[in-house]
């Protein structure tokens, strides 16, 4: 990754160990995951031992140590979504893509994740596709969404 960008994340936070989570969240948002080299730099610049950096990376669900897909499909499995059938959505993904939540398709196109609640409970079940929220999802709607997400790539390839 470009060191320039990490520099701007670290700006004003250097040698402040308590900024670790904030820095890592920014890094995760920017890169989609936490690259090893970047974590080494973060460890050095904030003054936090690398082992503690990795402990934090493993503890919080927000962090991923592996690169994620271009499309991140997040299925909300909060209580309100659960009683309205979010399990069916998880099944749909497993059947359609053959991957488990948390995994990425081998072509790097789609990552599927589950989240405990995104707080749009009145409209459940909710799926978040990258940053856009989709309400009242059904397995059928999700299937089309995933097809479309996978299809975008094909079109680009032809162009």
């Amino acid at each position, binding site marked *: 990754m470009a060191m320039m960008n990490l520099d701007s994340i670290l700006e004003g936070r250097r040698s402040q160990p308590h900024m670790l*989570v904030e820095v890592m969240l920014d890094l995760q948002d920017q890169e989609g995951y936490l690259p090893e080299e970047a974590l080494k730099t973060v460890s050095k610049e904030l003054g936090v031992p690398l082992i503690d950096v990795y402990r934090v990376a493993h503890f*919080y669900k927000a962090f991923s140590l592996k690169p994620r897909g271009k499309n991140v499909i997040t299925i909300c499995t909060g209580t309100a979504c659960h*009683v*309205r059938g979010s399990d069916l959505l998880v099944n*749909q993904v497993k059947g359609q893509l053959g991957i488990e939540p948390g995994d990425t398709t081998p072509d790097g196109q789609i990552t599927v994740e589950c989240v*405990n609640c995104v707080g749009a409970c009145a409209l459940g079940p909710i799926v978040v596709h990258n940053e856009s929220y989709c309400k009242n999802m*059904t*397995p059928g709607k999700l*299937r089309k969404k995933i097809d479309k997400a996978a299809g975008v790539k094909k079109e680009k390839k032809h162009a």
Partner: protein
Amino acid sequence: MPRVSHAKDLEIIRTQVDGKRNRARLEMVIPNGTCCQASGSAALIDAVRAELARQGLLQDVALRVTGCLGFCEQEPVILIEPGNILYCHVAAKDAAEIVSRTAQKGEILEQFLFADPVSGKRIQMESDIPFYKAQTRQLIRMHRFVDPFSIDDYIATGGYKAIAKVLAGVKPEEIIAEVKAAGLRGRGGAGFPTGRKWEEAHEAPGDEKYVICNADEGDPGAYMDRCLLEANPHEVLEGMMIGAYAVGANKGYIYVRREYPLAVKHARIAIGQAREYGLLGDNILGSNFCFDVEVARGGGAFVCGESTALMTSIEGKVGEPRAKDVHTVKEGLWNRPTVLNNVETWANVPSIMLNGAKWFASRGTDSSKGTKILALTGQVKNTGLVEVAMGTPIRTIVYDIGGGPKNGNKIKAVQTGGPSGGCIPERLFDLPVDFDALWDAGSMMGSGGMVVMDDKTCMVDVARYFLKFLQDESCGKCVPCRVGIDRMLEIVTDIAEGHGRPEQIPLLQELAETVAEASLCGLGKSAPNPVLSTLRYFIDEYTAHVHGRQCPAGVCKALITYAIDAEKCTGCGVCLKSCPHDSITGEKKKVHIIDAGLCQKCGICISECKFDAITVK
């Protein structure tokens, strides 16, 4: 940029905003919170704005983009004043018609009015809609007046008047006495008296103290904190300022979960504006009081909603809780005295200081004062955020406000308090919603999630769902929680999968009681609640699973089979196409068949079939 250095400056801003508003003939309010955006509000706002410009109405009509107004099910909505007209389910393509007919000519467009699902009638005024009628909207009511990006809007509603009043000569002890007299209890779950917490932190020795706003809201099924912080962030900031002044803190943190990106953004903007106005920083409003606030984001760990874990997380570490032999009001963040309150608690503070303890305590029950925002979700007709006076019966909330069951099914229970709460059966729906009544019934207020469950919800499956959630979220530090939840989940899974043994039921009960007693923090102590409350009220469902090998609700996969009703099947082939496991066969226009050996009971065919032909037994 005007800097507010005196209470008089607030008055000037208020007059300016009022003047501007009075010049407009009509006001259109469009909420744009996270849930509104999921329904397409952003496109609607753009379309309405473009249409107002095109029709030359920018001066006449004031468009205000606000936070959520609570009736999430009906979004996107437009509220039109004067007239209190609410248009529901409005799409961007409707903007031209609404602007040309309603905004230009004052016509009311019947097709956008709320259609009452109970009576079928169209209702014109927002205040006449049953969903709103039984509510007491103290906090949410303000959202319509405030563009969350505008500190001026907040000031125009009387914002920052309370902190001005306090700094003009109310002593910290008097503030604490007022909050105590109001009977304000923590809205985050446990209901600890806020005034007592402040008093202990005030009396704790030390120059450096902190206040924290807990917006981690990890309880699935609750989102009032997100809504408050998104819609009216300055109200939360003002509450924190008053609290900080009362306990002697100069620094505050708002800890928001990162799953709420809009709340993070709005909180940051609000802090920036308050700093610009001099309402945060040194010598606020010309006094000696100095205070600043920072946003800290959570990393997606449920346990970080627990106060000690949250504080470790702000310190940039792994968010594990610690034993509370020394309270956080004495040794909290960086071992300094710290007051941590929930978003809704902080939001209630300014109005208590302005209107007095008596006013606040005039609503509610003996032990629980004021109002509470509940997130009404699940299998009811009207879902959304509901603000009621404490003591309102569950029945009123579910049937009058919620409009009753969604799909004509029978309502069986409500789940309150998230993973720490429990399920309350329908026969107890006359219980008033207050901290103690819910606790006595084996549940808890929690942050105020209220998920309605009907007879298609299996209570064993619900217990299993929460145990899975908690197994995932337990930080693993103490044995009772880490191992106890694992073992409980094993037992409940056995029961759900049809190989439960009778002796496992008392064992589950005993295990649950042990985990509650021996765990280190609130997460573990309350983790058994979903199990205990379902065992207490729905023991017949457990016995049906164990003795009858049946799941009465038709949910637990091992105990059900899918079949196609030959009378209803039209042979359209939709199920065949949608089945990801190729377990359905059949020719076009002939009855289809499910191969029970291949069927994974994923339920996709049920959601796809338009003729209700798939049966579950």
